[in-house]
């Protein structure tokens, strides 16, 4: 069990180290990278199955130091589900990259960096310690900084400045808030913190909660703090964009969910009402930004923000149904958004640009690509029977049940506007006549298996989640109950102390 819990950290670490020395040997590094991603997928799937069939929460003490003194890894159902979905999209991104990424970037250590990114992401999902979470965030950020500007194109360095400076600012907020919280509580272990904070003056906690909200809000791309995202996500190569779109902001959302269910539930009327307002405005501004854009990847970047709003909405309600909708939305969104970026990449490859004015007529030559695009696009908008419909239905039901009528109305309207924006891409890229001047066809010919396989796999996951999502929904509901049961989390972590003392360890 201990090994299974540490594998999601150990595999990326090992692969990151192994892939760097072989980075100049293309075929070998491709084979190693795909093997690593597949192994990670298998390990995380095993972990989820183990948790679902077992008691649902497992704890490992690193170096056998008992909590709250040592660092613990805690896997509950939310962590395990996030690990599995992230392993799935990173598998897809690695396979897609083997065809897409140019040799120059590969020789600079591209795959090594992808696994370093996964190391940070998986660590953040598993850790049960606040400062350790900061360290994993930094690991993830450092890898993402380099991935973002790798290749040093003009657009990349420009997007990089915005991404780096705002994310560094977020890290500083995180660090300051951690320092203040340590000063108040004298501990940084999540389980211990949630126990100690119950008896702390709520006014001081409100300030700390706001600091954490800002720090994770920047990383998640929540309403007033999202500006770095649409400025930078469309600049790196397509697989990097897709990977960032799937993973990075979701780690921010995960951290928000963790902190605002486990630590700061002292005054939901204040903290969670602010979250609710932010969620509504995030949905709205994101989709309006997307409507104004005219470039495939920029439209998709704005939709990330809009969809983040739905996840925060579920969290802000702080009801079992609301949190279940957040968890299901996270799972659905990661798959769908990554897939949309992959397909957007095919558009860019076909026409040499993602600008909607200069593309068109794709449905005549490649109707199947149009159908493949419609699956994630309709899912994003929430058309039945795809996964997005289930996710949106859950959010709206949770909103109505909690009497948050205004925010629920916004959620419905934003769904329609998302559909409009997806149809804009469909009309421009697939339906209208081909562009009049001859198309700059950079890499013509049939697409390779490495590019198509990830798209097919992710599209079938989307269809599966919509048609037969019952087991996933059950996991999401159980995860939500776990999130609301803080004493269960504390008991699970501290039972480790009793065990290790009992066995003399």
């Amino acid at each position, binding site marked *: 069990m201990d090994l299974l819990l540490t594998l999601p950290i150990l595999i990326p670490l090992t692969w990151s180290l192994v892939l760097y020395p072989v980075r100049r040997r293309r075929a070998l590094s491709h084979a190693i990278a795909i093997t690593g991603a597949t192994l990670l997928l298998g390990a995380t799937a095993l972990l989820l199955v183990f948790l679902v069939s077992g008691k649902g929460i497992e704890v490992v003490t690193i170096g056998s130091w008992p909590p709250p003194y040592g660092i613990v890894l805690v896997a509950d159902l939310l962590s395990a589900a996030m690990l599995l979905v992230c392993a799935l999209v990173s598998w897809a991104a690695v396979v897609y990259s083997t065809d897409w990424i140019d040799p120059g970037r590969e020789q600079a250590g591209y795959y090594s960096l992808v696994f370093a990114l996964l190391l940070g992401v998986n660590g953040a999902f598993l850790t049960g310690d606040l400062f350790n979470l900061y360290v994993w965030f*930094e690991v993830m950020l450092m890898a993402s900084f380099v991935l973002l500007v790798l290749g*040093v194109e003009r657009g990349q360095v420009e997007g990089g400045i915005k991404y*780096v400076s705002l994310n560094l600012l977020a890290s500083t907020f995180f660090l*300051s808030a951690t320092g203040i919280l340590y000063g108040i509580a004298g501990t940084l272990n999540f389980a211990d913190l949630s126990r100690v904070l119950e008896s702390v003056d709520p006014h001081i906690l409100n300030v700390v909660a706001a600091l954490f909200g800002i720090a994770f809000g920047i990383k998640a791309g929540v309403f007033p703090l999202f500006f770095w995202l649409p400025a930078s996500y469309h600049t790196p190569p397509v697989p990097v964009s897709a990977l960032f779109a799937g993973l990075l902001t979701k780690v921010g959302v995960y951290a928000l969910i963790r902190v605002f269910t486990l630590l700061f539930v002292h005054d939901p009327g204040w903290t969670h009402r602010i979250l609710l307002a932010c969620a509504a405005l995030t949905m709205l501004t994101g989709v309006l930004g997307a409507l104004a854009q005219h470039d495939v990847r920029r439209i998709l970047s704005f939709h990330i923000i809009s969809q983040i709003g739905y996840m925060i909405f579920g969290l802000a309600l702080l009801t079992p149904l609301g949190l279940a909708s957040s968890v299901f939305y996270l799972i659905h969104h990661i798959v769908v958004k990554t897939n949309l970026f992959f397909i957007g990449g095919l558009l860019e490859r076909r026409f040499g640009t*993602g600008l909607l004015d200069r593309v068109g007529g794709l449905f005549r030559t490649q109707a199947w690509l149009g159908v493949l695009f419609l699956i994630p696009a309709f899912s994003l908008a929430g058309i039945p029977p795809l996964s997005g419909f289930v996710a949106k239905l859950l959010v709206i039901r949770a909103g109505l049940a909690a009497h948050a009528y205004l925010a629920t109305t916004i959620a419905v309207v934003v769904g329609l506007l998302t559909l409009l924006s997806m149809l804009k891409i469909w009309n421009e890229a697939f339906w209208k006549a081909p562009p009049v001047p001859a198309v700059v066809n950079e890499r013509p010919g049939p697409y390779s298996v490495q590019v198509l396989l990830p798209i097919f796999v992710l599209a079938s996951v989307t269809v599966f989640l919509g048609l037969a999502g019952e087991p996933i929904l059950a996991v999401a509901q159980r995860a939500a109950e776990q999130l609301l049961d803080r004493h269960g989390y504390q008991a699970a972590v501290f039972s480790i102390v009793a065990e290790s003392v009992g066995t003399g360890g």
Partner: protein
Amino acid sequence: MEVLFAIMVGTLYGCALYLLLRRSIVKLTVGLILIGNGANLLLFSAGGLVRGRPPLVLEGTSTVPAPYADPLPQALILTAIVISFGVLVFAVALIYQTYRALATDDLDDLTTTDRLGEVSETAHQPVVPVGTSLSSDQGS
């Protein structure tokens, strides 16, 4: 002592925010360095400052006598310093590359990735080597 630290941290944050709001990329980076140091000092003073009382268990006893320096913030700050140093080295390299690519130190000129509806023709061109680039860029 804590009051002194609080004033120090506040001053660092204030100066950093002022620099972050300037248009120059170099000042932005200096601002990030200052705010990082401010956060480190905040972390350091978070557990309370105690002079000359290391948390060591004396021979023959099993606990540390009451007022002792908390070792945890010191461990945290070491980690934070190493991380912020690494990140800042990257940031400095990045502003150098930005200067090579765009020949400007003005954040208001970095609008091509935000501008609506158009994509700069040069967006996906690699940064050209130093020397040759700057003169031709300024000419165009």
